[in-house]
């Protein structure tokens, strides 16, 4: 073994920078770590995409998506697809932490637990948005509708934020249970209903060219949902990961 300069008289690492900087740095580190691992394996996004494509194809046959019905159900089909594909991503993202004991590794680090929550949630949000960014043009081409409207994209962003905020919290619990993969959708979907309903209605409003006055209540509801659940998750996450 080569000689080492590792001596213990060097002082233990002091706080690098202010605590806020340390906090943000750990969030960034977790996001970077998730993205780098996914970039190597491409397992998560690959599975989410194939699954999403299948859901859309099944809907095509199940709903006989001819031109007239298509307009009315597009937003519903999209959100159901996102919601189902999302649970795959959430389960996998938390299973990675649990399987090799990595969650303990995160908990051993001298950072606030909520940094772990935000890191994981932002990583999950990225995966969600990447999948959505591929599904949207795919759907547009397959069914010849233009989904690239700023309003719709804004709704998708708001919906995905709320989805991953609640999803990350509940997935961290589900992954520690005996029935883990089965449990997440059962825990998640009933709590998500107001968000999904608002997202479907708001998306539909933009696609059908409704007036803003009709869409705004839904947008407001989504913003309220996002704010409330990010705050709740921030307060309770400690209890989900600590023993």
């Amino acid at each position, binding site marked *: *073994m*080569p000689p*080492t*300069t*590792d*001596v*213990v*008289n*060097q*002082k*233990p*690492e002091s*706080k*690098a*920078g202010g605590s806020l900087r*340390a906090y943000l*740095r*750990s969030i*960034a*580190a*977790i996001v*970077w*770590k998730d993205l*780098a*691992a*996914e970039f*190597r*394996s491409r*397992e998560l996004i690959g599975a989410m995409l194939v699954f999403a494509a299948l859901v859309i194809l099944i809907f095509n046959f199940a709903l006989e998506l001819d031109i007239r019905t298509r307009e009315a159900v597009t937003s519903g089909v999209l959100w159901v697809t996102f919601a189902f594909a999302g649970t795959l991503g959430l389960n996998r993202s938390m299973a*990675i932490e649990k399987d*090799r*004991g*990595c969650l*303990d*590794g*995160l*908990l*051993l*680090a*001298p*950072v606030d637990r909520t940094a772990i929550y935000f890191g994981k949630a932002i990583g999950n949000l990225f995966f969600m948005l990447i999948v959505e960014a591929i599904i949207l043009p795919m759907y547009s081409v397959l069914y010849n509708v233009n989904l690239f409207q700023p309003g719709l994209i804004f709704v998708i962003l708001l919906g995905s934020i709320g989805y991953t905020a609640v999803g990350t919290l509940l997935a961290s619990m589900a992954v520690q249970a005996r029935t883990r993969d089965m449990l997440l959708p059962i825990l998640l979907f009933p709590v998500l209903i107001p968000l999904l309903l608002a997202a479907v209605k708001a998306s539909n409003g933009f696609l059908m060219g409704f007036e803003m006055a009709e869409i705004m209540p839904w947008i407001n509801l989504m913003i309220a949902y996002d704010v409330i659940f990010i705050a709740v998750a921030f307060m309770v996450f400690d209890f989900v990961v*600590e*023993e």
Partner: protein
Amino acid sequence: MIKVRRLVKTFGPKPVLRGLDFQVTRGEFVALLGPNGAGKTTFLRILATLSRPKMGEVIVAGHHLPAEAAAVRRRLGVVSHQPLLYGDLSAEQNLRFYSWMYGVGDLERRIDEVLHLVGLNPRRRDLVRQFSRGMQQRLAIGRAILHRPDILLFDEPHTGLDQEAAAMLDQVLREIATAGRTVVMTSHDISRAADLADRVDILSKGVITASESTEDLDPIQLTELYRSVTRV
């Protein structure tokens, strides 16, 4: 360095640690022996701030647990029987990630240092998923000492290693233990514990039942002692 008094931990109605007393001075290497279910892992998890004590006093590096856990975490390096590494990241990326989490300054040099120390420099760009169990365990040690902790906790680090990998691990353990660090290691392996540690404590049914310096005892005497105090 570590001082534990009347520590109690229960899982629901089931007591795991029943008023455990324990003490380690600076620079000491203590091995914790005991049968399965004696509470070794639970005890180490409490020292590692991963689990909260139910009752009793736990002081690590002058800080009370669980109240001052954050301050303790900075000074702790933990190796469990799970590697705590990400399979889809390379050795180097794993270390870089943990360096950021700990706020390690001068990080590239430190990562080089650690990779050399655990003998994984040639494989630094390979995915951890492709590593053998022994290599993963050595990298796990690298991960644990990255932020220059002065207290090390090892939870059965030899689990699942073959003879050669275990011997290599011993070498790394000795090297990092001599640098004036305080080490607590749980183990099943009596002779290995006697070989590595300065002192051997035996944990049985949630309390320390024997504590002997390894200078006074040879492995055979130690085995006899172990049998006598853990006998049901």
